[in-house]
């Protein structure tokens, strides 16, 4: 059982500094959630991790599901039995769950069912940038947007209540800056958990009859227009007849408040904070629109509120007359990427003809001067000792030796960095979870049309369970000759080491029989070869052999994530560079270990012109000893 977390305590009035995702989890606990499921993905992962600490087989089941669709299905199953349930995911995850969601909306729910989607504006830890709010509107489900920490807790509680009373799935949208920010939250009481799950005779949850169910969705949304107008999450602060009103949601609220204070324009500008963004709270927003003629919409990422406001204004020209809406279409607010206070300040400077200088230039210069050098200049890359580095080293060399200009289709995980120099830039495609194998399957079949470049698909272990298995079955069924390499590091490493079906542990701390990737591949019909990527020659030889086969091949590179291995078993070797043998930049080496192999555990000393081991971060994997052309790097076995 994971250790208890303050969030799990039933101590009303207790104040804690909570991460946004912890506040969302607290909201679910205060709402009496009984089942929570998710697949890890930044910036949403901490919601389930927090709830897991309150888990209890009799009161609250929490799980890492194999993917987001299954997570939402699990939550729906609980809801159909009358329990409150939550599914959490990042924006990409909603796409995976969306097929189910677009049927579930019509079916309706029994126990409150809240889907929390954490968008990642700017794609800081994602493969895309995507505004999921449109997906709520698209599927006729109500949408709430959190804009703070206590606000997040309150809103999730509110969402559960309304979901249950309207029989509708609710979507709560957070963004990175709130999910990963921190703020004070004063706890409310945790409810008594009582009652058995029950599916009543006569109940059914199906989308049929479709038109009637669709009509019912529209009725629910119509009703919510008024419910939301009375919601405490939509508020206005400012003069009665402001020159301009900032209409904002999400993190835009905090940035707008900051901008108004810094510019000292509270007496000229009002702020309308929208917590319920779909359906539009018509009465409330109508009142706001009557207060002024100019509006600036501040939101991440796409113009969702902005377009909805314009649509509402366009349909009510007689009532509202001429209004001007500034925002993304007008170019005042960036139309891609995350927001920052300076974006709002910049827009207000233009619209109000005021100016703002945050700091004297000399001060900025001084800060830059004092802080440069505090951070080690290091490119985005694999951790020291990462098995993926060895894997891609072998893949790169095998492709070069094969000589047919083969390519690698990449996938989602730490190993996505194979797109960049840390993974020797071997990966040439990157899309969704599990797509590497599917895309490669579409390339492999081209052999009969004259394609002569071999293809390798890489896939992590957690990604394998998430979405790769159907693509692999398809590969075998439609006989697409390419090489699948499962990079099994026994962890969902990139999102923070959450357990998955191959690890033998659930997030509630239960031991289960691990499901072996190898067994699944064999059962599909592949002759699987498992290799240790730290054995570079054997790994490279296996890739070369697989590249030459004319049938689909599966290799598994199995080696525990270096960060986990360091925690579990410690360093295998102490590494040392023999300065006498190291020839550094000279012809014959040209800093091969630091410039090409690029493990951050190796550093180049420009004064001695020799490579060195960075003892502080070297994990002692020993691989660099095998790549040094001068055999100048030595391993010393540690007991």
């Amino acid at each position, binding site marked *: 059982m994971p250790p208890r977390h303050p969030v799990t305590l039933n101590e009303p009035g207790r104040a804690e500094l909570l991460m946004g995702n912890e506040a969302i989890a607290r909201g679910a606990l205060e709402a009496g959630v009984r089942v929570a499921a998710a697949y890890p993905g930044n910036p949403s992962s901490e919601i389930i991790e927090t709830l897991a600490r309150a888990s209890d087989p009799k009161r609250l089941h929490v799980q890492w599901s194999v993917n987001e669709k299954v997570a939402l299905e699990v939550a729906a199953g609980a809801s159909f039995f009358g329990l409150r349930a939550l599914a959490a995911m990042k924006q990409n995850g909603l796409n995976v769950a969306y097929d189910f969601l677009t049927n579930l909306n019509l079916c309706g729910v029994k126990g409150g069912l809240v889907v929390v989607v954490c968008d990642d504006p700017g794609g800081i830890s994602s493969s895309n940038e995507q505004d999921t709010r449109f997906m709520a509107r698209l599927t006729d489900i109500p949408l709430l947007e959190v804009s703070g920490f206590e606000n997040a807790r309150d809103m999730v509680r509110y969402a559960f209540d309304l979901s249950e009373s309207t029989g509708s799935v609710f979507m709560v949208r957070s963004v990175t800056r709130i999910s990963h920010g921190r703020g004070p939250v004063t706890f409310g009481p945790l409810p008594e958990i009582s009652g058995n799950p029950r599916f009543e005779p006569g109940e059914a949850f199906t989308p049929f009859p479709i038109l009637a169910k669709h009509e019912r969705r529209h009725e629910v949304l119509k009703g919510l227009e008024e419910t939301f107008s009375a919601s405490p999450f939509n508020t206005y602060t400012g003069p009665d007849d402001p020159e301009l009103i900032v209409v904002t949601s999400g993190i835009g609220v905090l940035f707008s408040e900051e901008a108004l204070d810094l510019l000292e324009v509270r007496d000229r500008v009002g702020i309308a904070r929208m917590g319920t963004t779909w359906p539009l709270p018509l009465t409330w927003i109508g009142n706001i629109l009557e207060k002024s003629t100019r509006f600036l919409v501040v939101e991440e990422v796409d113009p969702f509120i902005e377009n909805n406001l314009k649509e509402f204004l366009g349909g009510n020209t007689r009532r509202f007359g001429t209004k001007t809406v500034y925002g993304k279409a007008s170019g005042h607010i960036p139309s891609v990427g995350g927001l920052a206070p300076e974006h709002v300040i910049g827009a207000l400077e233009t619209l109000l003809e005021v100016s703002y200088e945050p700091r004297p230039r000399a001060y900025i210069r001084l800060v830059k001067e004092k802080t440069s050098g505090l951070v080690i200049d290091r490119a985005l890359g694999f951790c020291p000792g990462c098995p993926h580095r060895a894997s891609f080293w072998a893949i*790169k*060399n095998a*492709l*070069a*030796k094969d*000589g047919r200009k083969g390519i690698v289709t990449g996938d989602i995980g730490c190993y996505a960095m194979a797109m960049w120099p840390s993974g*020797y830039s071997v990966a040439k495609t990157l899309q969704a979870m599990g797509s590497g194998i599917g895309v490669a399957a579409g390339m492999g079949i081209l052999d009969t049309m004259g394609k002569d470049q071999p293809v390798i698909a890489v896939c992590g272990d957690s990604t394998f369970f998430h979405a790769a298995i159907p693509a692999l079955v398809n590969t075998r069924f439609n006989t697409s000759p390419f090489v699948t390499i499962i990079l099994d590091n026994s962890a969902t490493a990139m999102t923070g080491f959450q357990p998955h079906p191959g690890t033998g542990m659930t997030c509630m701390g239960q031991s289960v029989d691990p499901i072996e990737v190898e067994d699944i591949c064999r059962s599909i019909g592949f002759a699987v070869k498992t290799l240790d990527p730290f054995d570079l020659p054997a790994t490279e030889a296996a890739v070369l052999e697989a590249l030459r086969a004319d049938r689909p091949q599966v290799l598994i590179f199995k080696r525990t994530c270096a960060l986990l291995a360091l925690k579990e078993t410690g360093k295998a070797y102490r590494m040392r560079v023999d300065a006498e043998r190291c*020839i550094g*930049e*000279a*012809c*014959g*080496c*040209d800093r*091969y270990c630091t*410039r*090409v192999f690029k493990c951050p555990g190796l550093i180049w000393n420009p004064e001695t012109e020799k490579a060195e081991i960075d003892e502080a971060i070297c994990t002692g994997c020993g691989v660099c000893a095998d*790549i040094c*052309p001068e055999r100048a790097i030595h391993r010393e076995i540690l007991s």
Partner: protein
Amino acid sequence: MSREATSFKVLTEEIIEKGECARCGACVELCPYLSLYEGAIVYPDACDLTGGRCLSFCPKGPLDLEALARMCWNGPYEGTPLGPVSKVVMARVPGSAGAQYGGVVTALVRAAVSENGMAGALLTAWKDRAYPEGAVLDDPGDLPYHGGVHYAAGYGLAALNRFRKSNPSPLTIVGLPCQAMALRRMHALDHERNIHRNKDDLVIGLFCTWALEPRPFREEMIRRFGSRRVTRYDIPPPPANRFDVFFEDGDKAEIPLDVIRSLVNPGCRTCLDMTAEFADISVGAAEGFEGWNTVIIRTPKGAALFERLNGERIIETRALPVASLAHLSEAAAMKKKKALNALAEKDLLDNRVTLPSGTREAIFNFQPGGGK
């Protein structure tokens, strides 16, 4: 200000990838960036140095023939068909049944490796009968296995780079014209990490009109004969126009020579040298005289070795008929002419290969029978 292109970039992009590589092996096994794998140079990573040994050794790299000739021969580069010649004769080893032609190369190697200070001989050998590869042998008893013409370029000098890392002694090196030229560049290069500088290697050159590109040749052989084990290949004199393959089980197969010509290493088309002009002594077949070699003695070192063998009656010699010499010169001149045209077509004359003024005209004006 333009940055000088790295040696690696010129070598890989301008020479190897543009079909200019001679496959001599001089650039590989020096560093982790260029290595040999199954008949091809592979380079998974890029080096960012300029002035690297790889490009400086390359016989297809930037080359001033006049400078090389002055260094090597102490004389000018004149573009004569056979290069500097001290003496041309026919020779053979009496009763040398195992050799492909006159057995002279094997005899020269055996004699040379027994001389003082010689650490052994570098020859190009078959590896697993798949791809020829350089090998340094210190026991002359191993030699018969390596006798015979392999036709495919073998990157033999890679083995020299590998050998010299641990052994500085001179070697007897049997090589193609491109390898003889590379060797002279290796001996000459002033570079702090040049392990070949001023080595007293003896260079036995082989006549060569072209060599085959190893991977496509191998593929063709597998396509035709699967895994049957080949003992040797031969191109019988014209007008046969065929390529003979001899198998271990005594069988023989014939392939039309045009098929084989399509597998010629493209880099050979811009090679000016048929008779290994930069060797100490060059050896080839004596066309029309079965069982005899043509030998061109070039340097005093080559002459001394040859005379020793002659004196010890290990080999016997006879004069090369005037008509044969004219025929050899004509063939060598033809190779030069074709190469000059190919160099001009690829815009490499003066950019990559510099000839002294007048040489080009001398090559094109060469008249059969009128040459030296």
